[in-house]
Structure formats: structure tokens, C-alpha cells
């Protein structure tokens, strides 16, 4: 791969992002949290098409609920599942920004999670899915009805369901949520589906460091942009697409 024509700062940014996923792989390896850490090690982390842009593609990281955790899902329907597993995929294009930058760090973001339940002795699998997307502006204009970064139930990866029963699948609602990169997406899955493991990992200084750094890079600007909605100043990140539901203070 030609490595000329990349600014040193960009190259370092990409190298750091790749190294973080490797560190995450080392931390998670052997803990039994994920089925295999290879998708983290094999994640594609490279430069993007534009200068100072980077790309991440992480395919199908598998998490398995251990039998105890499966049984603990008391409100699951169907309730007699033998095993539950999740796969997490992350694809993004982002900007290689300096520390402390407050701009929107991503150009494109798609985090997909498919949850599958298995029943023993049958071929029937049960699926649900959610995804976090960053809307891309259409015709150069942001869609100002929905938050730019949002979580939605369902997703393109949701396989055709054999029988929906009385369940209705719609596109809405889009719920605003801060962006997730590879590290934060893994943390998100852990907090929501593996709370005990998450607590153990949060005791690990290295893990805390990785998550904290990622939050600094992606959640701080997002929070500032959200907060900006409540002020009248001139923002680095115009918060309107982040939290469009907030009435613009400047217009009140």
C-alpha cells in the first residue's frame, strides 16, 4: 500500500487507532468476553479517500452470553433459549483531528448489532437488531428532523423473520446518542448486555484508559455541541443536527 502522500499527523492518528484496537484485543483476549478477538486484530484501519481522513471497518465481533446470563434473561421472549449471541460490526469514515478539537469527528458512521437467540434442538433462530448511524446530509443539507447520530431498532442486517407474530417493525424512532467508534461500541455492548464483565473490565486501568481517550475524542465535542444548543455563541460544531429537537436559543 503506498504510504507516501500522507501527512505525518494523519499517519500517527491512524497508527494510534489501529494500536488501540490491538490493545483492546489483548485486554479482552482470554477474558471470555468475546468469542474471538481476531475481528479487532483484523479490523481494517487505514487512510480514507480525502487527505486527513481515516477509515475503520470491523467485521462481526461475536459476544456470547454464558448459560447463566442466558437464564438470567427472564423477560426474554421466547423464554426457553439455549444460547444468545450478539455480533457487532463497525464501519466509519472520520477526520484525523488534533487533541481537543471540537468539530464533528465523523463523516460516516454505522454501528450494527444483531442479537440472535437459539433454541435447542430446533433450527429456529430468533433475531433482533439495532444500529447507530450518522446521517449523511442529502443535497448538502442535514436532515434537521432527526438527530445526526441516532440509534434505531431494526436494521438492514436483520434477516427475514419467519414470523413476526404481532410485532411491528418500523423505521422510527431515531433516538439521539453520542457517536461510537470501535472501542466505544464494544463498551456499549458490554454495558448493556454484560454488566458484570463490564464492571470487571472497568477495574482494568488499561481498559479505562482506552475508553476514556475515545470519549475525549468523540463524546466531548458531541456534548459541547449539545450544550451549545442552549447558548447563543458561535460554536465550533453547530449543534443543531446533533439535537435538532432543541429549540434554537438564538431564535427565542
Amino acid at each position, binding site marked *: 500500500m503506498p504510504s507516501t502522500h500522507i501527512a505525518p499527523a494523519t499517519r500517527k492518528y491512524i497508527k494510534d487507532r489501529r494500536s488501540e484496537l490491538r490493545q483492546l484485543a489483548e485486554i479482552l483476549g482470554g477474558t471470555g468476553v468475546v468469542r474471538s478477538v*481476531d475481528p479487532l486484530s483484523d479490523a481494517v484501519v487505514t487512510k480514507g479517500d480525502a487527505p486527513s481522513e481515516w477509515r475503520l471497518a470491523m467485521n462481526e465481533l461475536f459476544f456470547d452470553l454464558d448459560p447463566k446470563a442466558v437464564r438470567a434473561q427472564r423477560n426474554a421472549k421466547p423464554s426457553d433459549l439455549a444460547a444468545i449471541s450478539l455480533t457487532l460490526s463497525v464501519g466509519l469514515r472520520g477526520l484525523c483531528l488534533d487533541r481537543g478539537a471540537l468539530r464533528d469527528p465523523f463523516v460516516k458512521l454505522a454501528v450494527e448489532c444483531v442479537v440472535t437467540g*437459539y433454541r*435447542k434442538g430446533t433450527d429456529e433462530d430468533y433475531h433482533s437488531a439495532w444500529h447507530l448511524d450518522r446521517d449523511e446530509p442529502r443535497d448538502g443539507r442535514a436532515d434537521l428532523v432527526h438527530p445526526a447520530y441516532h440509534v434505531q431498532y431494526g436494521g438492514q442486517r436483520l434477516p427475514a423473520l419467519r414470523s413476526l407474530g404481532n410485532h411491528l417493525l418500523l423505521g422510527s424512532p431515531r433516538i439521539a446518542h453520542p457517536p461510537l467508534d470501535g472501542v466505544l461500541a464494544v463498551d456499549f455492548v458490554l454495558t448493556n448486555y454484560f454488566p458484570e464483565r463490564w464492571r470487571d473490565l472497568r477495574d482494568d486501568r488499561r481498559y479505562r484508559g482506552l475508553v476514556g481517550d475515545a470519549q475525549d475524542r468523540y463524546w466531548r465535542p458531541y456534548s459541547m455541541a449539545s450544550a451549545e444548543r442552549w447558548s447563543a455563541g458561535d460554536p465550533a460544531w453547530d449543534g443543531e443536527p446533533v439535537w435538532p429537537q432543541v429549540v434554537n436559543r438564538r431564535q427565542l
Partner: protein
Amino acid sequence: MTYLYLDDEITTSLRSYVRRVAPKEGDLTIETVRPSAFAEQIEAAMRGSFDGMILDLRLDKVAGEDGVQADYRAPALAQEIRTRAAEELLDEDGTGDENRGRSEFPIALWSTDMRLRQSYDRDKTSHDLFDLLCVKEHLVSTDPSVPDEEKAPAVAQRLRSLVTGYQTIKALRDETDEGDEQFFRFLGFDAPPDGVDERLYRYVLSEAPPRERPAHEYARFIQREVLESAGPLLDRQTVAARLGVDVAGSDDFGELLGRFDEAAYSGVFHEGWPRWWSDVVEEVAEVLIGASLRPLTAPERVEHLSAATGLDGLVAAEPITADDTTDFWVVCQATNRPLNPRDGFVLETGRRYPWQRDKYVSRYAAENRMLSRRHLRLTVSERERADALFS
């Protein structure tokens, strides 16, 4: 190239195995010899002029016509050779570099299937002593379930490759400056390679000064932890899986592989262990077809590759069962068929280096109990998952 082969029972069938591996006209010679008493045998090994040794596991079963019966087995002899070879590197007897490296050569172990399983398999400490393990009956086998790499032609290639590889190792080792490890040179590179995991190409074999490191430690490490483990280097079957190609059914697979020469591993032992760098394979494929192969199904991959290369003799690989997906990435270690990890289970592979990857078996193999006879085991959590799904 000459290998000295020690066996206490030089039977007709043994001679036929040897002939198959080293035919008369070839460049590889195997001299079969009965083992002498230990001390004599060691001397002969240390001072002989051969390029490698092959040992039968049990050298002590049968006495020769002269009444001499060895009172040792292959691991003991191999261990002594290795120990003395290491000592020669330290030049403790002050004879200088004269004997340095002279008794550093590949040692292969040949035995019958039964004896290997009874004696060798159980003795894990011996596994580090030998560069190649061969089951005699497999050398001449026509059974398709015996892997090709255990049959005579591949074994011959490996024996040759071991000799060349040891020579390369010794040369590179003696050029290595302390503190400036250039392990990438053992991997076939002149300079630190872009895109290869740095933790691999900057690997430091041991704390000992380079000149004191035994060649066989390098050999064992490269074979075990670089070539035979899953990781940045792919074997032929795995390359085929990632290209979506059914090897047996594709007349043009060899041709297609030729387009990936840029990705071919050229480091130590490459002749006997042909491998390809996974990143480069993906890059070459992407340039060929203008898109990433990974998300495509096998039929789609083959269609694109056929169109891009003009090769018609390419057939898409079939999934192991009809329910399995065809965007193959790895190979099922039990069936040797292509697999995507989502349709399989992770194997227990023991201690791992950071550049290594997991190995998998298909759900089909796990469900049909095909693992134990191949000495394969799932990880603990994967066993739980398998039990929950279909025990």
C-alpha cells in the same frame, strides 16, 4: 543434499519408503544406517558430513548382525546433539569458530503411526527437538484423507527446505547485531516491511546474544509460531477459502495463485511451507477486481476473479452444509473445507503470540464429533456454547 537415516530395522518396506522420498536420480539422498552405541553415534553426528538426520523413534528394538544394539531412543540422541551444538556456539573449548554451527542441522523423526501415538504424543518435551515428524505409512499412502503434506513428494520438499532454511538461519544469525534485531530478514524482507505486524517482524528470539542462539531454536519458532499457526501468513487452503475457490474442482487455481506472487512468503522454509501474506493477498485481490473480496459470497468472488483474470477454470467453493454462509474466511481444521467463523467454533490452540489468530472448526464437525480423532479441542466457553446448542 544428504540425510543420514538411523533405523534399527532396515526392512524392505523401509527401503521402499526411502526410495519414494529420495529417488535415485534426485538431488536428495537418504543413507540408511543402523544406529551405533550412543557415544559413537554422537561423535558421528557431530563430525559427519551430511546435511540432516532422520531418526526412527525406537532405535533400540533390534540388535544388528554384529550384536550391537542401541540402548537409547531418538529423543535422547536428538537432545544430546542439540545440547552439544549449542555448546559449540559458546566456544568453551577455545577451538574457535572451526566447529561453530557444524552440528546444527535439521533432525526429522519418522515412525509408525502406532508408535508415535503410544510413545511420542505423550512425551511433550520431545516435541521441541524435531523439525519434522513423519508417519512412515503415510509416505506412500494413496488414501485421500491423509494430507498431501504427509506424503512422499511433499516430505521430500520439506526435507530439502529444512536444509536450506538451516543454512539461511545460521548465516542471518551470525550477521545479527545485538540490540539491532532484524527478524524481518528471516521472514524474507531486506527492510522493515509495511503492513506486517510490527510485533512479528521485530521479534527478539531470546535474551542470549545472537551469536549464541541455537539455529534449531529459530527453526522451531519459525515453524511453530509463524508458519504453522494461523495469522498473517496463509496456507494454500486458506488463500483458496478467501478467494472463494474450490481447489480440487478448479483447474486454473494454480494459475490464479500465480497472480498473487507479490504476496508469496519468501522467508526461511518457504519452499517446504508455501505461504502468502494475508494483507497483500487482500490488496492484490482488491486491485484485481476493484472492490473488497471480503463481503462477497464465493460465487461472486469467483465471478469477479474470473472476469478480471480471464481464467475460466475456477469453481466456487461450496459451504460445508447448506445452512452455512459462503463469504469464507478460514478453513475448518477438521474437514479442511472453507468456513466463515460465524458458522463454526473456536479451537483451543494454547499459548499465543499477538500476531497469531484463532483456528476454527465447522459446526458440522463439532456436531458430528470429528474433533478428538484429530486432536482438536474447543475452548472452554465454546464447549459450553456447543453443549447448549446440540449436545
